[in-house]
């Protein structure tokens, strides 16, 4: 654990018990959920319970744009019980609508995944986090098959993921470090090669993409699959020491998760 990373994160807590995306902001579900996981933090969990909607979801956004993508992370952060189950019910009931076939952005129109916001396309990161949490907490959910199909469909040539499709207008798009890390966490149980390709992509990209969020999430993904990279962790540690990750709470929380005990919560156990 980088010196003081957990303390840096804890110091960004708001008086209401929640965590903001960056220092001084209002508490929001995603950073609060990640901080609750990273720090095993009762106050953050209480904030989540206080802000869970009656439908089980956790949202941010104006009335017509409800970003419900933090809900899977909040489910993972909550203690076992009714709140967690309602959050999981929300996740299985709120997949993205299927988008029709489009030659410009070829994809499997039978897949759905999960979007950042209600009623929009299923994107890699929100799909990956929903898939991960369902595999961890509701492993018999039928939506897992769709989630796995989405991750296969969106996988870039050679492995890994960017934020969306692997091809647009006939041009292949390359994977990103951070989204590949999110994807690896969600497919860590698969034995069809997709996991190994993602590990290789992370190994190829992490030196070229030295941002705190990417490195923190990549470290977490590699630790989750027991393939930690000491050099990556050293670079992440140096970045935390040198920049405090610029007060990015989500990046700090992933770092603390990656290098602390909380990583065990993200490991998918064989059935």
């Amino acid at each position, binding site marked *: 654990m980088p010196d003081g990373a957990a303390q840096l994160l804890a110091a960004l807590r708001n008086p209401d018990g929640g965590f*903001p*995306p*960056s220092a*001084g*902001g*209002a508490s*929001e579900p*995603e950073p609060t959920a990640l901080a609750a996981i990273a720090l095993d933090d009762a106050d953050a969990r209480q904030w989540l319970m206080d802000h869970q909607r009656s439908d089980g979801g956790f949202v*941010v*956004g*104006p*009335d*017509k*744009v409800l*970003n419900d*993508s933090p809900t899977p992370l909040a489910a993972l952060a909550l203690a076992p019980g009714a709140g967690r189950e309602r959050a999981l019910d929300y996740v299985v009931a709120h997949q993205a609508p299927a*988008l029709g076939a*489009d030659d*410009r*952005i070829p*994809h499997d129109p039978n897949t759905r995944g999960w*979007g*950042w*916001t209600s*009623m*929009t*396309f299923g*994107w890699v*990161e*929100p799909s990956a986090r929903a898939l991960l949490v369902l595999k961890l907490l509701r492993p018999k959910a039928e939506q897992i098959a769709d989630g796995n199909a989405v991750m296969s469909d969106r996988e870039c040539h050679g492995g890994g993921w*960017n*934020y*969306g*499709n692997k091809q*647009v*207008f006939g*041009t292949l*798009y390359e994977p*990103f*470090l*951070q989204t590949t890390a999110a994807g690896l966490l969600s497919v860590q149980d698969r034995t069809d090669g997709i996991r190994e390709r993602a590990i290789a992509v992370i190994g190829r990209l992490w030196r*070229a*993409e*030295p*941002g*705190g*969020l*990417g490195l923190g999430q990549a470290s977490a993904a590699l630790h989750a699959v027991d393939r930690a990279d000491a050099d990556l962790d050293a670079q992440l540690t140096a970045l935390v020491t040198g*920049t405090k*990750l*610029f007060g*990015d*709470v*989500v*990046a700090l929380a992933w770092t603390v998760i990656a290098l602390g005990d909380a990583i065990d919560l993200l490991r998918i156990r064989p059935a």
Partner: protein
Amino acid sequence: MNRLFHRQMSRRRFLLRAAELGLATGAVGLGIGAILERIPRSPWDTRAFPPPGRATVAVLKAASYSGDLEQTVMEGLRLVGADVSGASVLLKPNMVEFDPSSVINTDPRLVAATVAVMKRMGARLVTVAEGPGHRRDTQYIVAKSGLRDLLRDVDAPFLDLNIAGLTRVPIRSNWTQLGELWLPTDVVEADIVVSMPKMKTHHWGGVTLSLKNMFGTVPGRIYGWPKNVLHFAGLHDSILDVASTVHPDIAIVDGIVGMEGDGPIKGTAIMAGHLVFGRDPVAVDATAARLMGVDASRVDYIADAGRFLGQARPELIMQVGEDPERSATPFKLRPEFQGLRSGSSVQTPPANAAGG
């Protein structure tokens, strides 16, 4: 009333008052909202947007990012009458993502030069801010692009708009029916917002310039990556609603090296050799499009912006510096956008993208 006071009142007070109004009307109840949604609305309120007047746009030669870039920026801002004295200035470059082998971004050297010029012109505070549309890891982009080091040299902070504190504001026009936006408070409260796009083609919209560049002010943690809500609401409509609400006060287009073909990410570099300056972002985009060999009146969102947001008609734009027609470097366009070419009779498709 001095100019700064007028400027602050016209920008900050409008947005902040609009934010208060939005919260107040939001409390009235869903019943009224449901009724209003059934009443067809004009895309804009003519009382809020009087007919666009004449505009001045400066096109200056700039052969490279080395040399006396600051002098060129200073001259461009002087020619269009920009005044930033005493103001808090927020520079918004295009850093949507980063590829070391490509020219996706507004060149950091131009951004740093503009910071230095703004300070020389008496700006009270200059902040560089961006909310990348494709990447969550903003610090990666800022570091690898070289922007962080250059900003350190000119002593300017960088603000990640994807994680900044937010203010809820009503949208000033009604193209999308989204009704309101959550925008970074720093954007809302800045005295002057400067849109600094890269001169690029765009595979959904034809071209991307200072109006489209405002997508980067909309936070990804609300609207997703790649700001997918805006694409679902319609690219054309969203460009107009975001630009009308944020409304950059100054636009500086990086057309030294642009991107042609499959922009805004996968296109190729083209030496265009110009910077474009103005205080009317619509006029700047119309002029920059001409420099790209594109008829701005055929770019639907620029044409519609010219109806209420700014001046798009060449005969009402006073061009200073280089002549945009004679200085044009025709950018390669995707086949479906050949109709945007000046003099072409080809039809272009509507701009939209739900996935991708």
